[in-house]
Protein backbone atom coordinates (compact mmCIF):
# COMPACT_ATOMS: atom_id res chain seq x y z
CA UNK A 1 0.00 0.00 0.00
CA UNK A 2 1.42 3.34 -1.08
CA UNK A 3 1.41 6.20 1.41
CA UNK A 4 -0.24 9.13 -0.31
CA UNK A 5 2.17 11.46 1.48
CA UNK A 6 5.17 9.67 -0.09
CA UNK A 7 7.32 11.66 -2.50
CA UNK A 8 8.14 9.64 -5.60
CA UNK A 9 11.56 10.12 -7.15
CA UNK A 10 12.45 8.83 -10.60
CA UNK A 11 15.25 6.28 -10.82
CA UNK A 12 18.31 8.39 -11.72
CA UNK A 13 19.26 5.70 -14.25
CA UNK A 14 16.09 6.40 -16.22
CA UNK A 15 15.78 8.30 -19.48
CA UNK A 16 12.44 9.19 -20.98
CA UNK A 17 10.65 11.00 -23.75
CA UNK A 18 6.96 11.54 -24.35
CA UNK A 19 5.94 10.73 -27.89
CA UNK A 20 2.33 11.09 -29.03
CA UNK A 21 1.19 11.28 -25.44
CA UNK A 22 2.96 8.10 -24.40
CA UNK A 23 6.10 8.06 -22.29
CA UNK A 24 8.86 5.66 -23.23
CA UNK A 25 11.22 5.06 -20.34
CA UNK A 26 14.62 3.39 -20.57
CA UNK A 27 16.35 2.33 -17.37
CA UNK A 28 20.02 1.59 -17.78
CA UNK A 29 20.82 -0.51 -14.74
CA UNK A 30 18.15 -3.06 -15.58
CA UNK A 31 18.23 -2.53 -19.33
CA UNK A 32 14.46 -2.16 -19.11
CA UNK A 33 12.16 -0.24 -21.41
CA UNK A 34 8.64 0.71 -20.41
CA UNK A 35 5.84 2.26 -22.44
CA UNK A 36 3.16 4.06 -20.43
CA UNK A 37 -0.47 4.73 -21.25
CA UNK A 38 -2.04 8.18 -21.12
CA UNK A 39 -2.64 8.38 -17.37
CA UNK A 40 0.70 6.70 -16.63
CA UNK A 41 2.44 9.26 -18.81
CA UNK A 42 0.74 12.15 -17.01
CA UNK A 43 1.84 10.67 -13.68
CA UNK A 44 5.42 10.10 -14.85
CA UNK A 45 5.73 13.63 -16.18
CA UNK A 46 4.52 15.10 -12.88
CA UNK A 47 7.15 13.28 -10.80
CA UNK A 48 9.63 16.00 -9.94
CA UNK A 49 11.04 14.86 -6.61
CA UNK A 50 9.00 17.38 -4.63
CA UNK A 51 5.35 16.46 -5.25
CA UNK A 52 3.66 13.80 -3.14
CA UNK A 53 1.56 10.94 -4.48
CA UNK A 54 -1.62 12.75 -3.43
CA UNK A 55 -0.53 15.99 -5.09
CA UNK A 56 0.27 14.17 -8.33
CA UNK A 57 -3.06 12.35 -8.17
CA UNK A 58 -4.93 15.62 -7.66
CA UNK A 59 -3.10 17.24 -10.58
CA UNK A 60 -3.91 14.34 -12.90
CA UNK A 61 -7.55 14.45 -11.80
CA UNK A 62 -7.67 18.17 -12.48
CA UNK A 63 -6.11 17.72 -15.94
CA UNK A 64 -8.64 15.02 -16.83
CA UNK A 65 -11.57 17.07 -15.56
CA UNK A 66 -10.42 20.15 -17.49
CA UNK A 67 -10.21 18.03 -20.62
CA UNK A 68 -13.77 16.79 -20.10
CA UNK A 69 -13.00 13.33 -18.68
CA UNK A 70 -14.85 13.75 -15.36
CA UNK A 71 -15.91 10.12 -15.37
CA UNK A 72 -12.33 8.92 -15.65
CA UNK A 73 -11.08 11.47 -13.15
CA UNK A 74 -13.36 10.26 -10.36
CA UNK A 75 -12.10 6.70 -10.40
CA UNK A 76 -8.47 7.24 -11.19
CA UNK A 77 -7.01 7.75 -7.69
CA UNK A 78 -6.90 4.07 -6.81
CA UNK A 79 -5.37 3.25 -10.19
CA UNK A 80 -2.64 5.82 -9.67
CA UNK A 81 -1.76 4.44 -6.24
CA UNK A 82 -1.56 0.98 -7.74
CA UNK A 83 0.57 2.35 -10.54
CA UNK A 84 3.03 3.86 -8.07
CA UNK A 85 3.27 0.50 -6.32
CA UNK A 86 4.00 -1.20 -9.61
CA UNK A 87 6.60 1.42 -10.60
CA UNK A 88 8.33 1.07 -7.22
CA UNK A 89 8.37 -2.72 -7.56
CA UNK A 90 10.00 -2.39 -10.99
CA UNK A 91 12.60 0.07 -9.74
CA UNK A 92 11.28 2.93 -11.88
CA UNK A 93 10.75 5.14 -8.82
CA UNK A 94 11.57 5.22 -5.14
CA UNK A 95 8.94 6.42 -2.73
CA UNK A 96 10.51 8.74 -0.21
CA UNK A 97 8.91 9.82 3.01
CA UNK A 98 6.85 12.99 2.68
CA UNK A 99 6.77 15.79 5.25
CA UNK A 100 3.00 15.68 5.80
Amino acid at each position, binding site marked *: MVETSAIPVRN*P*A*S*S*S*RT*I*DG*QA*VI*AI*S*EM*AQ*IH*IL*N*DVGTRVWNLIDGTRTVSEITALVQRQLTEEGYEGVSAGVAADIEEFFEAMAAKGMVTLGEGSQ
Partner: protein
Amino acid sequence: MAVTSYQEFVTKAFIESRPLSAQWELTFKCNHLCGFCYNAPNGQREMTTDEIKRGLDKIADFGVLYLTMTGGEPMVRPDFWEICKYARHLGFALRLYTNGYLVDEERARKLKEIHTFEVEISIHGARPESHDKLTGIRGSFDRVISALENLQKYRIKTNLKCPITHLNQGELWGIWDIATKYGASISFDPVITPRDDGDKSPLEMAATKDFLVRFFSDEFKELRYGRDVTKRDDSVVRANCGTGRTSFTIDPYGNIFPCVQWRRKWANIKDVENLAELWKGSEVLKHVRWAAEQIPQTTLKESEAGAFCTFCPGVAELQTGSPFKMYPQAAIVSEAKLQAYNAKGPHENEKGGGIDCIGV
Protein backbone atom coordinates in the same frame (compact mmCIF):
# COMPACT_ATOMS: atom_id res chain seq x y z
CA MET B 1 -3.08 4.65 -31.79
CA ALA B 2 -1.99 3.71 -28.28
CA VAL B 3 0.76 1.09 -28.16
CA THR B 4 1.30 -1.47 -25.45
CA SER B 5 4.61 -3.07 -26.34
CA TYR B 6 8.03 -1.79 -27.27
CA GLN B 7 7.84 -3.60 -30.59
CA GLU B 8 4.61 -1.78 -31.44
CA PHE B 9 6.18 1.48 -30.36
CA VAL B 10 9.18 1.02 -32.65
CA THR B 11 6.99 -0.08 -35.56
CA LYS B 12 4.77 2.97 -35.13
CA ALA B 13 7.84 5.23 -35.04
CA PHE B 14 9.09 3.57 -38.22
CA ILE B 15 5.81 3.97 -40.07
CA GLU B 16 5.47 7.60 -38.97
CA SER B 17 9.15 8.42 -39.61
CA ARG B 18 9.70 9.50 -36.04
CA PRO B 19 13.36 9.45 -35.01
CA LEU B 20 13.99 7.65 -31.73
CA SER B 21 17.76 7.48 -31.94
CA ALA B 22 20.80 9.36 -33.17
CA GLN B 23 24.42 8.36 -33.66
CA TRP B 24 26.93 11.10 -33.02
CA GLU B 25 30.42 10.60 -34.39
CA LEU B 26 32.20 12.80 -31.86
CA THR B 27 35.53 12.51 -33.64
CA PHE B 28 37.25 10.66 -36.47
CA LYS B 29 40.41 10.43 -34.36
CA CYS B 30 41.11 6.89 -33.27
CA ASN B 31 43.72 4.96 -31.32
CA HIS B 32 43.31 1.95 -33.65
CA LEU B 33 44.30 1.34 -37.27
CA CYS B 34 41.61 -1.10 -38.46
CA GLY B 35 42.06 -1.86 -42.14
CA PHE B 36 38.33 -2.16 -42.76
CA CYS B 37 37.22 1.05 -41.00
CA TYR B 38 34.63 2.97 -43.05
CA ASN B 39 35.51 6.43 -41.66
CA ALA B 40 37.00 8.88 -44.13
CA PRO B 41 38.10 12.07 -42.34
CA ASN B 42 38.48 15.06 -44.68
CA GLY B 43 40.59 17.37 -42.52
CA GLN B 44 37.84 19.84 -41.60
CA ARG B 45 37.71 21.24 -38.07
CA GLU B 46 35.75 18.96 -35.76
CA MET B 47 33.04 20.48 -33.58
CA THR B 48 33.93 22.21 -30.33
CA THR B 49 32.46 21.25 -26.96
CA ASP B 50 30.03 24.18 -27.05
CA GLU B 51 28.93 23.43 -30.61
CA ILE B 52 28.20 19.83 -29.62
CA LYS B 53 26.25 20.92 -26.56
CA ARG B 54 24.09 23.28 -28.65
CA GLY B 55 23.54 20.43 -31.09
CA LEU B 56 22.52 18.12 -28.27
CA ASP B 57 19.97 20.72 -27.11
CA LYS B 58 18.44 20.63 -30.59
CA ILE B 59 18.14 16.87 -30.85
CA ALA B 60 16.78 16.60 -27.29
CA ASP B 61 14.07 19.14 -28.19
CA PHE B 62 13.39 17.03 -31.27
CA GLY B 63 12.43 14.08 -29.02
CA VAL B 64 15.31 11.69 -29.66
CA LEU B 65 15.65 9.18 -26.80
CA TYR B 66 18.69 7.02 -27.63
CA LEU B 67 21.97 8.73 -28.31
CA THR B 68 24.99 6.69 -29.40
CA MET B 69 28.38 8.30 -28.92
CA THR B 70 30.62 6.87 -31.59
CA GLY B 71 33.57 7.83 -33.77
CA GLY B 72 36.42 7.25 -34.59
CA GLU B 73 36.99 6.44 -30.96
CA PRO B 74 34.79 8.82 -28.97
CA MET B 75 36.71 8.38 -25.73
CA VAL B 76 39.85 10.02 -27.14
CA ARG B 77 38.12 13.41 -27.01
CA PRO B 78 39.36 15.30 -23.96
CA ASP B 79 35.82 16.64 -23.41
CA PHE B 80 34.22 13.18 -23.72
CA TRP B 81 32.93 13.13 -20.12
CA GLU B 82 31.68 16.70 -20.25
CA ILE B 83 29.68 15.88 -23.39
CA CYS B 84 28.30 12.64 -21.95
CA LYS B 85 27.26 14.28 -18.69
CA TYR B 86 25.53 17.03 -20.63
CA ALA B 87 23.73 14.44 -22.75
CA ARG B 88 22.51 12.65 -19.64
CA HIS B 89 21.41 15.98 -18.17
CA LEU B 90 19.24 16.36 -21.29
CA GLY B 91 17.65 12.98 -20.61
CA PHE B 92 19.16 10.86 -23.39
CA ALA B 93 19.55 7.11 -22.93
CA LEU B 94 23.25 7.05 -23.62
CA ARG B 95 24.96 4.36 -25.65
CA LEU B 96 28.69 4.25 -26.23
CA TYR B 97 30.30 2.55 -29.22
CA THR B 98 33.98 2.10 -28.47
CA ASN B 99 36.92 -0.15 -29.25
CA GLY B 100 37.27 -0.62 -25.48
CA TYR B 101 40.92 0.34 -25.35
CA LEU B 102 40.34 3.15 -22.86
CA VAL B 103 37.70 1.47 -20.68
CA ASP B 104 39.82 0.94 -17.57
CA GLU B 105 38.24 0.45 -14.15
CA GLU B 106 38.03 4.17 -13.41
CA ARG B 107 36.32 4.93 -16.70
CA ALA B 108 33.92 1.99 -16.27
CA ARG B 109 33.01 3.40 -12.87
CA LYS B 110 32.35 6.79 -14.48
CA LEU B 111 30.20 5.18 -17.17
CA LYS B 112 28.16 3.61 -14.39
CA GLU B 113 28.00 6.90 -12.51
CA ILE B 114 26.40 8.67 -15.48
CA HIS B 115 24.00 5.74 -15.97
CA THR B 116 25.17 4.76 -19.43
CA PHE B 117 22.41 2.68 -21.02
CA GLU B 118 24.74 0.30 -22.84
CA VAL B 119 28.25 -0.05 -24.20
CA GLU B 120 29.11 -1.64 -27.52
CA ILE B 121 32.65 -2.87 -28.13
CA SER B 122 34.20 -4.08 -31.35
CA ILE B 123 35.99 -7.42 -31.20
CA HIS B 124 37.83 -8.90 -34.15
CA GLY B 125 39.23 -12.19 -32.93
CA ALA B 126 39.32 -14.66 -30.06
CA ARG B 127 43.09 -14.36 -29.65
CA PRO B 128 45.48 -11.43 -29.29
CA GLU B 129 47.22 -12.39 -32.54
CA SER B 130 44.05 -12.16 -34.65
CA HIS B 131 42.39 -9.19 -32.95
CA ASP B 132 45.58 -7.13 -32.82
CA LYS B 133 46.33 -7.91 -36.46
CA LEU B 134 43.00 -6.40 -37.51
CA THR B 135 43.20 -3.36 -35.23
CA GLY B 136 46.86 -2.74 -36.01
CA ILE B 137 47.56 -2.15 -32.31
CA ARG B 138 49.52 -4.62 -30.19
CA GLY B 139 47.83 -5.18 -26.84
CA SER B 140 44.39 -4.10 -28.07
CA PHE B 141 42.86 -7.57 -27.48
CA ASP B 142 44.01 -7.57 -23.86
CA ARG B 143 42.45 -4.12 -23.46
CA VAL B 144 39.10 -5.42 -24.78
CA ILE B 145 39.19 -8.24 -22.23
CA SER B 146 40.07 -5.77 -19.51
CA ALA B 147 37.20 -3.49 -20.62
CA LEU B 148 34.79 -6.44 -20.46
CA GLU B 149 35.95 -7.27 -16.94
CA ASN B 150 35.51 -3.67 -15.84
CA LEU B 151 32.08 -3.28 -17.43
CA GLN B 152 30.94 -6.56 -15.92
CA LYS B 153 32.18 -5.43 -12.51
CA TYR B 154 29.98 -2.33 -12.72
CA ARG B 155 27.10 -4.29 -14.28
CA ILE B 156 26.88 -2.17 -17.41
CA LYS B 157 24.98 -3.79 -20.24
CA THR B 158 27.56 -4.64 -22.89
CA ASN B 159 27.22 -5.80 -26.48
CA LEU B 160 30.14 -7.06 -28.52
CA LYS B 161 30.14 -6.40 -32.25
CA CYS B 162 32.18 -8.56 -34.56
CA PRO B 163 32.48 -7.87 -38.28
CA ILE B 164 33.15 -11.29 -39.81
CA THR B 165 36.28 -11.29 -41.95
CA HIS B 166 38.18 -14.10 -43.65
CA LEU B 167 40.81 -13.61 -40.93
CA ASN B 168 38.49 -14.24 -37.98
CA GLN B 169 35.85 -16.52 -39.49
CA GLY B 170 37.49 -19.53 -37.84
CA GLU B 171 37.32 -17.95 -34.39
CA LEU B 172 33.66 -17.09 -33.99
CA TRP B 173 33.03 -19.74 -31.35
CA GLY B 174 35.98 -18.45 -29.36
CA ILE B 175 34.57 -14.92 -29.61
CA TRP B 176 31.18 -16.25 -28.52
CA ASP B 177 32.84 -17.85 -25.47
CA ILE B 178 34.42 -14.53 -24.55
CA ALA B 179 31.05 -12.79 -24.73
CA THR B 180 29.46 -15.53 -22.61
CA LYS B 181 32.24 -15.42 -20.02
CA TYR B 182 31.76 -11.68 -19.47
CA GLY B 183 27.96 -11.62 -19.64
CA ALA B 184 27.90 -9.62 -22.88
CA SER B 185 25.68 -10.17 -25.87
CA ILE B 186 27.27 -10.38 -29.30
CA SER B 187 26.28 -9.67 -32.86
CA PHE B 188 28.25 -10.95 -35.83
CA ASP B 189 28.08 -8.79 -38.93
CA PRO B 190 28.68 -10.68 -42.18
CA VAL B 191 29.00 -7.54 -44.32
CA ILE B 192 32.14 -5.45 -44.66
CA THR B 193 31.50 -2.06 -46.24
CA PRO B 194 33.65 0.31 -48.32
CA ARG B 195 35.07 3.46 -46.77
CA ASP B 196 32.80 6.50 -46.80
CA ASP B 197 34.97 8.04 -49.53
CA GLY B 198 34.29 5.06 -51.80
CA ASP B 199 37.63 3.28 -51.21
CA LYS B 200 36.82 -0.42 -51.60
CA SER B 201 39.99 -1.84 -50.02
CA PRO B 202 38.18 -2.94 -46.81
CA LEU B 203 36.20 -5.42 -48.95
CA GLU B 204 39.34 -7.55 -49.33
CA MET B 205 38.81 -8.53 -45.68
CA ALA B 206 35.36 -10.05 -46.30
CA ALA B 207 34.55 -13.58 -45.16
CA THR B 208 34.48 -16.30 -47.82
CA LYS B 209 31.15 -17.29 -49.35
CA ASP B 210 31.62 -20.92 -48.30
CA PHE B 211 31.98 -19.82 -44.74
CA LEU B 212 28.93 -17.56 -44.92
CA VAL B 213 26.78 -20.48 -46.10
CA ARG B 214 27.97 -22.38 -43.01
CA PHE B 215 27.40 -19.34 -40.81
CA PHE B 216 23.71 -19.23 -41.73
CA SER B 217 23.26 -22.99 -41.30
CA ASP B 218 22.30 -24.75 -38.07
CA GLU B 219 26.00 -25.24 -37.34
CA PHE B 220 26.13 -21.61 -36.15
CA LYS B 221 22.52 -21.24 -35.01
CA GLU B 222 23.55 -20.70 -31.40
CA LEU B 223 25.69 -17.74 -32.46
CA ARG B 224 22.57 -16.26 -34.03
CA TYR B 225 20.74 -16.71 -30.69
CA GLY B 226 18.75 -19.58 -32.15
CA ARG B 227 17.31 -17.54 -34.98
CA ASP B 228 16.55 -19.42 -38.16
CA VAL B 229 17.17 -17.85 -41.53
CA THR B 230 13.77 -16.53 -42.65
CA LYS B 231 12.47 -14.55 -45.57
CA ARG B 232 12.05 -10.81 -45.15
CA ASP B 233 8.61 -9.63 -44.09
CA ASP B 234 7.92 -6.27 -45.70
CA SER B 235 4.19 -6.39 -45.09
CA VAL B 236 4.10 -4.20 -41.97
CA VAL B 237 6.65 -1.44 -42.44
CA ARG B 238 6.89 -1.61 -46.24
CA ALA B 239 10.39 -0.21 -46.45
CA ASN B 240 13.81 -1.75 -46.86
CA CYS B 241 15.28 -0.25 -43.68
CA GLY B 242 14.99 2.58 -41.20
CA THR B 243 17.12 5.07 -43.12
CA GLY B 244 15.69 8.58 -42.76
CA ARG B 245 12.92 7.28 -40.54
CA THR B 246 13.87 6.15 -37.06
CA SER B 247 17.35 7.56 -36.65
CA PHE B 248 20.03 9.79 -38.11
CA THR B 249 23.79 10.24 -37.90
CA ILE B 250 25.87 13.33 -37.20
CA ASP B 251 29.54 13.41 -38.19
CA PRO B 252 32.32 15.26 -36.33
CA TYR B 253 31.81 18.32 -38.54
CA GLY B 254 28.10 18.56 -37.71
CA ASN B 255 26.79 17.18 -41.01
CA ILE B 256 23.59 15.19 -40.58
CA PHE B 257 22.94 12.07 -42.65
CA PRO B 258 19.92 9.73 -42.94
CA CYS B 259 21.95 6.95 -41.34
CA VAL B 260 25.50 5.88 -40.65
CA GLN B 261 25.87 4.26 -44.07
CA TRP B 262 23.99 6.61 -46.35
CA ARG B 263 26.01 9.82 -46.26
CA ARG B 264 23.65 12.14 -48.09
CA LYS B 265 23.85 15.35 -46.09
CA TRP B 266 20.45 16.81 -45.28
CA ALA B 267 21.55 19.50 -42.80
CA ASN B 268 24.32 20.66 -40.50
CA ILE B 269 23.45 20.65 -36.81
CA LYS B 270 25.34 23.93 -36.31
CA ASP B 271 23.12 25.78 -38.79
CA VAL B 272 19.75 24.14 -38.40
CA GLU B 273 17.12 26.15 -36.55
CA ASN B 274 14.13 23.83 -36.56
CA LEU B 275 15.10 20.19 -36.78
CA ALA B 276 11.50 18.92 -36.73
CA GLU B 277 10.51 21.11 -39.68
CA LEU B 278 13.54 20.08 -41.69
CA TRP B 279 13.02 16.40 -40.84
CA LYS B 280 9.57 16.65 -42.34
CA GLY B 281 10.37 18.87 -45.31
CA SER B 282 13.88 17.85 -46.40
CA GLU B 283 13.95 16.76 -50.04
CA VAL B 284 16.93 14.50 -49.28
CA LEU B 285 15.01 12.68 -46.57
CA LYS B 286 11.89 12.43 -48.71
CA HIS B 287 14.00 10.81 -51.39
CA VAL B 288 15.75 8.29 -49.13
CA ARG B 289 12.41 7.29 -47.58
CA TRP B 290 10.93 6.86 -51.04
CA ALA B 291 13.96 4.83 -52.15
CA ALA B 292 13.69 2.60 -49.07
CA GLU B 293 10.05 1.93 -49.96
CA GLN B 294 10.92 1.05 -53.56
CA ILE B 295 13.74 -1.39 -52.84
CA PRO B 296 11.61 -4.31 -51.55
CA GLN B 297 9.44 -3.97 -54.67
CA THR B 298 12.29 -3.60 -57.16
CA THR B 299 15.87 -4.55 -56.28
CA LEU B 300 14.89 -7.34 -53.91
CA LYS B 301 12.45 -8.85 -56.41
CA GLU B 302 15.12 -9.39 -59.03
CA SER B 303 16.34 -12.71 -57.64
CA GLU B 304 15.16 -15.49 -55.36
CA ALA B 305 17.88 -14.52 -52.89
CA GLY B 306 16.41 -11.01 -52.61
CA ALA B 307 13.86 -12.39 -50.15
CA PHE B 308 16.77 -12.95 -47.74
CA CYS B 309 18.69 -9.79 -48.46
CA THR B 310 19.79 -7.21 -45.92
CA PHE B 311 20.26 -4.47 -48.48
CA CYS B 312 21.84 -1.13 -47.65
CA PRO B 313 21.03 1.63 -50.16
CA GLY B 314 23.86 3.71 -48.71
CA VAL B 315 26.46 1.06 -49.44
CA ALA B 316 24.86 0.42 -52.83
CA GLU B 317 25.13 4.07 -53.80
CA LEU B 318 28.70 4.32 -52.56
CA GLN B 319 29.75 1.20 -54.38
CA THR B 320 27.70 1.20 -57.56
CA GLY B 321 26.52 4.81 -57.92
CA SER B 322 22.87 3.82 -57.45
CA PRO B 323 20.99 3.13 -54.20
CA PHE B 324 18.93 0.51 -56.07
CA LYS B 325 21.72 -1.55 -57.54
CA MET B 326 22.67 -4.83 -55.91
CA TYR B 327 26.27 -4.83 -54.66
CA PRO B 328 28.46 -7.91 -54.30
CA GLN B 329 28.51 -8.28 -50.50
CA ALA B 330 24.71 -8.09 -50.19
CA ALA B 331 24.34 -10.56 -53.06
CA ILE B 332 26.83 -13.00 -51.53
CA VAL B 333 25.27 -12.86 -48.06
CA SER B 334 21.73 -13.27 -49.35
CA GLU B 335 22.82 -16.17 -51.60
CA ALA B 336 24.43 -17.78 -48.57
CA LYS B 337 21.20 -17.34 -46.61
CA LEU B 338 19.16 -18.81 -49.47
CA GLN B 339 21.42 -21.86 -49.66
CA ALA B 340 21.19 -22.39 -45.91
CA TYR B 341 17.42 -21.91 -46.06
CA ASN B 342 16.94 -24.42 -48.87
CA ALA B 343 19.20 -26.95 -47.19
CA LYS B 344 16.73 -27.12 -44.31
CA GLY B 345 13.94 -28.47 -46.52
CA PRO B 346 10.27 -27.39 -46.64
CA HIS B 347 9.29 -24.33 -44.58
CA GLU B 348 5.68 -24.51 -43.52
CA ASN B 349 3.84 -21.85 -41.55
CA GLU B 350 6.94 -19.74 -41.47
CA LYS B 351 6.69 -16.38 -39.78
CA GLY B 352 8.54 -13.67 -41.66
CA GLY B 353 11.64 -12.23 -40.10
CA GLY B 354 10.93 -8.52 -40.46
CA ILE B 355 13.80 -6.29 -41.42
CA ASP B 356 17.29 -6.23 -39.97
CA CYS B 357 18.23 -2.59 -40.11
CA ILE B 358 15.51 -0.65 -38.34
CA GLY B 359 17.90 1.87 -36.82
CA VAL B 360 16.73 1.90 -33.18
